[in-house]
């Protein structure tokens, strides 16, 4: 990859993105082997720096790094000096002193990974594992990977992303990446849950889910992020799920080949019914499996080659 960090899906051009997806395709088979390990990143240290709760992303990055034989240090804000008031800078300096080759960071503040990458506090690669309501590029990559396995080349494919776009870093990263890969993205949400300036995104937006089901090759449901909502964005949960939830009747109106996706964690009964989540057209569990392969590909491409060959500050 051209950069030694992965901060935003917008940093990836088409070649970079395809390179990651093709690499992940090969790495997927590692999960089926008797020895699920490659020696490639032996002796490298990957730090999972999680200031926000996460199950699948942290486990997924941990599994990916371990399958490449890297040493993994897990750091979560709870129970660390962060709760004593330590700043991001001091945490970064500590990690640098411990010799971290890559830091996978999740933070509730949008832009925290960018700050870490451009600060010179540390010299390793920075991978954004979700920052506030900004971006979550590896999730977008694993979504694109999953879609590609089911739908083939994404050029011209129609992807409908439904729900809480306003608070969703997944939606933003997906919109950018899918556009780069040539897909046509439609965001569907109540007007209150679409961000200001969405018309400048390279995607279409709509307020009516039913009108956007029949053409969709994939429908991605987003979680309603109650914890980020400081006002009422819709009248009631029941009304939301009636208008923007995916139930069996709506799923049956999708084309035969279309898949149902959800980045997790799901609110069953809210944005997606249990029947749909567990139906054969749902690829939600597969998304998790693919996540490990995609993150292996990202870590390999960032760390596997010549050390600091293309990082601007070199090995200072």
């Amino acid at each position, binding site marked *: 990859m051209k950069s030694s960090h992965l901060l935003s899906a917008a940093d990836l051009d088409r070649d970079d993105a395809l390179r990651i997806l093709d690499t992940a395709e*090969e790495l997927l088979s590692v999960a089926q082997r008797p020895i699920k*390990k490659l020696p490639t990143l032996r002796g490298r240290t990957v730090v999972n720096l999680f200031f926000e709760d996460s199950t699948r992303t942290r486990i997924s990055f941990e599994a990916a790094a371990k399958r490449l034989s890297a040493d993994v240090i897990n750091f979560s804000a709870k129970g660390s000096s962060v709760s004593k008031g330590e700043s991001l800078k001091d945490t970064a300096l500590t990690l640098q002193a411990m010799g971290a080759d890559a830091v996978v960071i999740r933070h509730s503040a949008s832009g925290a990974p960018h700050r870490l990458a451009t600060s010179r506090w540390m010299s390793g690669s920075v991978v954004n594992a979700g920052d506030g309501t900004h971006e979550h590029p590896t999730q977008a990559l694993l979504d694109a990977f999953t879609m590609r396995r089911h739908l083939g080349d994404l050029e011209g494919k129609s992807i409908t992303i439904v729900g809480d776009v306003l608070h969703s870093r997944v939606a933003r990263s997906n919109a950018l990446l899918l556009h780069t890969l040539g897909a046509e993205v439609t965001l569907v949400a109540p007007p209150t849950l679409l961000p200001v300036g969405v018309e400048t995104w390279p995607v279409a937006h709509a307020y009516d889910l039913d009108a956007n089901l029949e053409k969709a090759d994939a429908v991605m449901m987003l979680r309603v992020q109650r914890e980020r909502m400081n006002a009422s964005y819709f009248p009631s949960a029941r009304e939301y799920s009636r208008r923007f939830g995916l139930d069996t009747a709506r799923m049956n109106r999708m084309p035969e080949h279309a898949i149902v996706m959800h980045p997790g964690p799901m609110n069953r009964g809210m944005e997606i019914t249990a029947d749909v989540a567990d139906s054969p057209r749902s690829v939600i569990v597969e998304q998790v499996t693919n996540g490990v392969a995609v993150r292996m590909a990202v870590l390999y491409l960032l760390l596997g*080659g010549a050390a600091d060959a293309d990082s601007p500050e070199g090995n200072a």
Partner: protein
Amino acid sequence: MVVSSDAPRPDDMPARTVLDEQDISRALTRITHEILERNRDADGVLLLGIPTRGVDLARRIAARMSEVEGRPITPGSLDVTMYRDDLRMRPARALEHTSIPEDVDGKTVVLVDDVLFSGRTIRAALDALGDLGRPKAVQLAVLVDRGHRELPIRADFVGKNLPTSLAEKVKVRLTEADGEPDSVTIVGGAS
């Protein structure tokens, strides 16, 4: 493998052809028979080519073997990129395809590559194989052995032994991979 593909600026130097289409075809036929002779027959033999040209060569050997044995023989491919010892010397490379048609446990695996040089690619291949299972034996077939080994590795089946100097480059061209007629040429060096 190392020197065959993207050798920089060899085109302005004089090239001499050491093997032409006919020679390569005869060498592969001989290697096929040698493999069958050594292992009695093709039962329990698994051909694995090392990308990219090793895979093409493995396919050709498998086709010849199928003819002799009278049953289809499927070769596989084994990408060794993740096991190389020179990964940190250049930017991360794209991976090639690995396909293992059957379990390697208890099989006699014949690795196939185009050029045997330092032996480091084969070392990586042996490590990769070790993670896939426990073959009964591993043998090595190469189209060209150009010497200059840096590891204690030798080939079991050799198309042609080609004494070279380190200043020379050995270029293998195969129709499948390169879209030009088969050939092995030596480029550069003093001649």
